[in-house]
């Protein structure tokens, strides 16, 4: 009797196939993604240069706030946000122009399942430096746009800009751009018709200050409904007050443009 139990226990131990552990599976997937996005270039770890912040546990998987901070003087020219376990993992790619400051970038994204996220900074010297974060959120990709859907469509392309803190020449100014856009990712099912709502996403956002580039963002299906982009720009001396101009293009080739006055502080 005892022998047969031991025999069973042994079968139990050895009959099952060897299992890769989760950490190495996740690391292998990140390797595949690096190959897909960066080819043979390697991403070096560098918390000191770029850091990624996101809630470890998101309350709403369809609206997960993410912020990327880069160190001053790190000569960052571009930022990638990768959500490893999202279909369409490259959530955003941002390049900076002469009026942009990569010190802070904030976005809101959809998260499909518990996943690693990576922020990768590209430097003027062509280096790729990354940091990672594990986020517990699930179901965000197929989550419906919800109550905002009608409003997002009715007001599609409308924008708001909020400037925080003082506006002074040669100093980074913190701004938040809100874009009304449903950003339908094509994975959301209409609960009444049982059909997938066709994809319609923000493809690019170009921001200039008095005609000089601040940043350009390439978006994808992982950006949340009504995209909100937090960023910094640096006014030139003698250029204040200035005009910040935003051009948004979506996957239906619709173009939305809006200009915002940037007054100098104290004026």
């Amino acid at each position, binding site marked *: 009797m005892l022998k047969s139990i031991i025999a069973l226990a042994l079968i*139990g131990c050895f009959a*099952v196939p060897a*299992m*890769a*552990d*989760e950490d190495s*599976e996740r690391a292998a*997937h990140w390797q*595949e*993604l690096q190959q*897909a996005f960066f080819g043979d270039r390697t991403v070096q770890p560098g918390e000191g240069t770029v850091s990624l912040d996101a809630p470890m*546990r998101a*309350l709403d998987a369809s609206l997960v706030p993410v912020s990327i901070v880069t160190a001053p003087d790190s000569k960052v020219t571009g930022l990638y946000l990768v959500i*490893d*376990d*999202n*279909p*369409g*993992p*490259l959530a955003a790619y941002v390049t900076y122009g002469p009026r942009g400051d990569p010190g802070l970038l904030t976005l809101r994204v959809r998260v*499909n*399942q*518990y*996943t690693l996220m990576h922020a990768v900074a590209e430097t003027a010297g062509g280096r790729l430096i990354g940091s990672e974060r594990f986020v*517990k959120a*699930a*179901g965000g*990709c*197929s*989550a419906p746009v919800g109550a905002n859907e009608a409003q997002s469509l009715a007001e599609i392309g409308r924008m708001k800009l909020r400037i925080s803190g003082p506006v002074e020449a040669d100093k980074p100014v913190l701004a938040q751009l809100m874009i009304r856009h449903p950003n339908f*990712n*094509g*994975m959301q*099912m209409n*609960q009444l018709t049982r059909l*997938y709502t*066709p*994809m319609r996403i923000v493809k690019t956002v170009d921001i200039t200050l008095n005609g000089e580039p601040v940043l350009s963002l390439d978006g*994808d*299906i992982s950006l949340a409904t009504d995209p909100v982009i937090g960023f910094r720009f640096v006014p030139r001396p003698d250029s204040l007050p200035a005009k910040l101009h935003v051009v948004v293009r979506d*996957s239906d080739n619709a173009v939305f443009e809006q200009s915002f006055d940037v007054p100098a502080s104290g004026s």
Partner: protein
Amino acid sequence: MRLAGALLALLLGVCASPIGAADPAPEPEGFWTGPMQGAVPATIAGGKVVTTGELEALISSAMPALVDVGPLPHKPDNLAAEAWIAPPHRTIPYSVWLPGVGKGELAPDVEGWYRAWLTALTDGDLSKPIVIFCHPNCWGSWNAAKRAILYGYKAVHWYPGGIEGWQESGHQTQAVEPETPPQ
């Protein structure tokens, strides 16, 4: 102090269940044909609802057939092929992933395919334990478990905690490929 304790317990309770705090839905007459995400029942007639702890015990005592019925992610028709990288499906180790068998209505050939899988996983033994799950608040697993009960399986376990409930308890997952139902 007592009040503080009660408040703390309340807070912890709220924080520990960020997903699926809504009141349970009543069991539908047949299969659920409404939106697949939403409040699910607390019960399943003819089967047993299991917690993560009960699932752990079941796995260590009588390795059940583990059936993940989570849906396949839907690739948008107008998305560039290179932008879509299907994510690894991370599930409870040793599970078989049968996407789509939890729908409200099944095509006859998909139904036959699901029955054949259950037969294979149990060696045709109707008393062998089966655990069916997908995600929290996912009706698919309730429907699929209900089907298994109607096919005559005597030890159908429905695990509403799903993959995220499993991960919340600190368990490892394993990436699996989907089995493909008949088109």
